[in-house]
């Protein structure tokens, strides 16, 4: 069961979480409390809360398959039947029934207990005896519910229904139709959340099965979430197939390093390998979803070719030799530094100290960053998109640039009736919404004018208005677009959300690290941190990465970097929210963390870097940059414990 309370990602200085978790999808919590009793115990909950959720607050488990707190309830699987008075004589599904004052609910009557056991028996009727080889084993609600609520023995001796299996839905996801309990979470997720039609149900009755539409493999960047959603082993990750079981793994709640949204993820570790990434719900940022880049792109971390020791001229060397060689060759040269997207705040801060001090005049670039300047003033929190009446998206294909923010936009439109204004030359997935979408298609260079013309549009007359802006994939004048967006927001009384591309682009900008230049042409000594090709002008190249990539060529000095699964530190997402990494893997010497190496460099150069550890660095950042004040208050390292739920007696 997902942990409902995400670890507090720092308090001070982060945007306030104003959009609360609703009690039921599409409803905002009322301040009126409704008091009811469940199994003889009373609870008071907001109006609109579903019985299933109210029961959870009393640690009463009402088992569910088709219900999911992020999807519209359907009452299809019938597993959550409870008896309600006053009410109809027949049992009702707890997942579709909202609370009412004075309601008396019983989940433990003989009738309800038998109903639950019967449904589980039906689900198991055709379910294959795959537990020993099924990747859901150990974290499978069907297993857990059968133990807690099902019959202890089986009366089934008929042959089971068979399907061809497994079916590859894509190169990442496998479908096992025999295990499927037809809860329809996957098809409903695609329809309600992702606005895509990739999965559907074919045939009817007991012959029903899930299939991909038009026999096409799943192509959506949002496809991986169905693995987390599926309550059985019907939808499994092919990347993690047959790898391990939950009890073999340790996990931490960390932050994804692939883009500026900063979705919270759970990173799972086994035998010092990063074996799996799943979502970790944070209602303020990701709302429980991650995209396929964050979920599946981690193989590099475990690659055998990882660089683990320094190299000088292609030969293994000690850190001391490598650093000395590096610093010697950088002295007095036109220095260029290319930083990785996911440079942490702490590393950026130390680098700034170097660039302000001994490396004064160095050019610092972040490849593939947007041309959006640093944010000034308050920007919009992601969760507040749900309160917007009008959402303007300028120069960005959000499904590609900031995928999980794209899902939040879709939620605001489909659940809360927000209206969309799109400024982009191409058709976008957001155009699929059949009502209230105004799409302007500017020519190259025509963005500022197109944005200005929106001031009078009827959709912008009703606030709150959210103005999201990218830089047209780097081909447009980002500064001009930002200025036009700011003017529009000001005129419409709206709030801005800059859509940075780099994971910690906003943090690096806040620290004043990045210059105006786009590349390192003209520099004769370069330090490439992460992916990136050295410029033709470079006479001396140092690379600092965890893999030697083809574009790196043959660097003179190669320093091993810790990966995102090993680095401590923090990122600042596009909202300006500071979030702390909790690496699941230890840094094995001779590997060293980035901030540690930068401290070392700083000491060797007599830079202003008197810090004894990462905590001191974080405090210094907080003091130096008000926007990053949250760094002074990192959260506790332990995960909040998961609530243990108790069910009624076995039948």
């Amino acid at each position: 069961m997902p942990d409902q309370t995400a670890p507090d990602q720092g308090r001070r200085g982060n945007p306030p979480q104003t959009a609360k978790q609703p009690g039921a999808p599409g409803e905002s919590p009322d301040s009126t409390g409704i008091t009811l009793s469940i199994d003889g115990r009373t609870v008071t909950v907001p109006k609109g809360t579903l019985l299933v959720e109210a029961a959870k607050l009393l640690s009463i488990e009402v088992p569910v398959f088709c219900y999911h707190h992020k999807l519209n309830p359907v009452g299809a699987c019938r597993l959550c039947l409870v008896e309600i008075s006053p009410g109809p004589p027949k049992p009702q599904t707890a997942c579709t029934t909202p609370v009412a004052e004075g309601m008396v609910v019983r989940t433990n009557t003989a009738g309800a207990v038998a109903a639950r056991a019967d449904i589980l028996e039906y689900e198991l009727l055709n379910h294959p005896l795959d537990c020993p080889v099924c990747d859901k084993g150990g974290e499978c609600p069907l297993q857990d519910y059968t133990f807690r609520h099902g019959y202890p023995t089986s009366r089934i001796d008929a042959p089971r229904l068979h399907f061809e299996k497994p079916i590859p839905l894509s190169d990442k996801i496998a479908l096992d139709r025999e295990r499927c309990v037809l809860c329809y979470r996957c098809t409903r997720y695609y329809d309600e959340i992702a606005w895509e039609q990739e999965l559907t149900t074919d045939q009817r009755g007991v012959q029903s099965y899930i299939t991909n539409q038009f026999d096409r493999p799943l192509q959506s960047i949002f496809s991986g979430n169905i693995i987390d959603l599926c309550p059985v082993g019907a939808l499994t990750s092919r990347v993690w197939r047959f790898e391990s079981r939950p009890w073999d793994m340790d996990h931490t709640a960390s932050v994804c390093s692939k883009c500026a949204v900063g979705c919270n993820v759970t990173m799972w570790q086994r035998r010092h390998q990063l074996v799996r990434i799943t979502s970790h719900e944070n209602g303020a940022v990701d709302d429980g979803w991650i995209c396929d880049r964050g979920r599946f792109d981690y193989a590099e971390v475990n690659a055998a070719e990882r660089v683990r020791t320094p190299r000088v001229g292609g030969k293994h060397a000690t850190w001391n030799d490598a650093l000395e060689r590096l610093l010697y060759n950088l002295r007095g040269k036109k220095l260029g530094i290319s930083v990785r997207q996911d440079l942490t705040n702490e590393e950026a801060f130390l680098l700034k100290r170097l660039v302000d001090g001994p490396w004064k005049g160095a050019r610092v670039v972040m490849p593939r960053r947007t041309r959006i300047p640093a944010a000034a003033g308050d920007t919009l929190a992601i969760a507040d998109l749900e309160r917007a009446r009008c959402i303007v998206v300028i120069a960005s294909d959000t499904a590609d640039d900031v995928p999980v923010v794209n899902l939040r936009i879709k939620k605001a439109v489909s659940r809360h009736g927000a209206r969309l204004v799109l400024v982009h030359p191409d058709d976008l997935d957001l155009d699929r919404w059949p009502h209230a979408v105004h799409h302007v298609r500017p020519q190259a260079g025509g963005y500022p004018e197109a944005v200005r013309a929106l001031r009078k549009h009827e959709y912008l007359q009703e606030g709150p208005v959210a103005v999201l802006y990218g830089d047209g994939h780097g081909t447009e004048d980002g500064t001009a677009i930002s200025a036009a967006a700011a003017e529009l927001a000001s005129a419409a009384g709206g709030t801005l959300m800059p859509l940075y591309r780099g994971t910690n682009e906003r943090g690096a900008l806040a620290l004043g690290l990045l210059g105006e230049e786009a590349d390192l042409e003209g520099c004769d000594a370069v330090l490439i941190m992460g992916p990136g090709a050295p410029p033709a002008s470079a006479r001396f190249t140092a690379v600092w990465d965890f893999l030697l990539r083809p574009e790196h060529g043959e660097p003179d000095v190669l320093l091993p970097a810790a990966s995102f699964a090993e680095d401590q530190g923090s990122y600042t997402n596009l909202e300006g929210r500071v979030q702390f990494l909790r690496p699941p893997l230890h840094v094995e010497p001779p590997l060293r963390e980035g901030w540690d190496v930068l401290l070392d460099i700083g000491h060797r150069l007599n830079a202003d870097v008197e810090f004894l550890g990462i905590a001191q660095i974080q405090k210094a950042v907080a003091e130096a940059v008000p926007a990053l004040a949250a760094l002074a208050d990192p959260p506790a390292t332990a995960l909040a414990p998961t609530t243990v739920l108790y069910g009624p007696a076995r039948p």
Partner: protein
Amino acid sequence: MAELRGSHGKARHHLLTQHFGAAGLATLKGYQKLGGYDTLEKALAMEPKALVDEVKASGLRGRGGAGFATGVKWGFMPPPDGGPRYVVVNADESEPGTSKDRYIIENSPHMVLEGILIAAFAVQSHQAWIYIRGEYDRPYRMLMDAIGELREAKILGSKPFGKDYPLDIQMYRGHGAYICGEETALLESLEGKRAQPRSRPPYPAVKGAWARPTLLNNIETLATVPWIIKHGAAEYTKFGTEKNRGTRLLSVSGNVRKPGVYEIEIGVPFTHVIMELAGGPFEGRQIKAFWPGGSSAKVLPASRMDVTTDAEALAAADSMAGSGGCMVADNSACMVETTYRLLKFYAYESCGKCTPCRVGGNWAVRTVAKILAGEGSRLDLQILDKIQAGLQDGRCLCGLGDSAGWVVQSAMNHFPEEFEEHAVRHTCSVKRERAAASA
């Protein structure tokens, strides 16, 4: 034209079928010659609320199967809010044994349309949809022709009979699913989605087609409305029983000499329907069992043929009036085989959305098949009993599951010896008798 297999011509209780068979009845001209659409014109001059009250006073109950008080259902529609509201006509008629809606449409399509339009005005709707099962090709074309005639005569349009109240009717053809007779599944199909019932509440009157207020009624129910408005509710209450007023069409089929669609006054006994109207059993056979209201109504043994056709009496006899599809079996029918055949229907038609019907229905079919194959045991009878209980009483999302459960429950209840001998002794006395008779 083909010989009418059912009621027609003048009789005291022939309220719907009186003119069936009259030349040209299916055309607008022919229908108008007999007074057609005068009632619509009259209704358009009345207050919508008055129409609703009249139908309430008549005691008309839905003829689709549920038997809900029609006037009360009309009254559930919320007040107009400026947005669209719909009347959706359930012409999906798929209940086994039922063909009365087809009989009505093929004989008098205009009577249906007139009823629909009166209802639309009564609930302040401007748009009606007729959802007709895909297999009803001829009735569909007849209704389409009739609608075309109305459009040409401007009875459908912006000013029917000069009244500033636009009215239109559209048709939609189903794709072959019994579940589309269930009102919310019908709405899903109408909206172009997979036909699976919705969780209720909200009910269609509040959130129906395209989430708008929708009135859903059966063909026969609406076809009765013109008579009620023309003659008045008080006249209608002179027929039928106190709680179940009026007349209705029973479709009688099976082992009877004269199967057909017969209009009866509600309250007559089934002996009249089966033995008199339908001519009774074939030579040398005796009636054994009958399903009074479609296969979804619990079967009754012949000893209960004296039960009357009103809803209350049937409920007291542990069955139901349902859709009025009366199927009759004689002593050549093996009740285990008929149970198997009917169960296969429900399992095949199950939409698959909810677990007990999807899995339980199939499990029941396989168990009965096992019993029929002579491989059963007493345990299989216990399993069947467990399954039928698991299909009822709110376990399923819609009534299809309950009906499947009733099929098994009622057959095992009234004919336990047949199930016993099949499952435990692996014999069938009916088969033996059939073999002996043909030897």
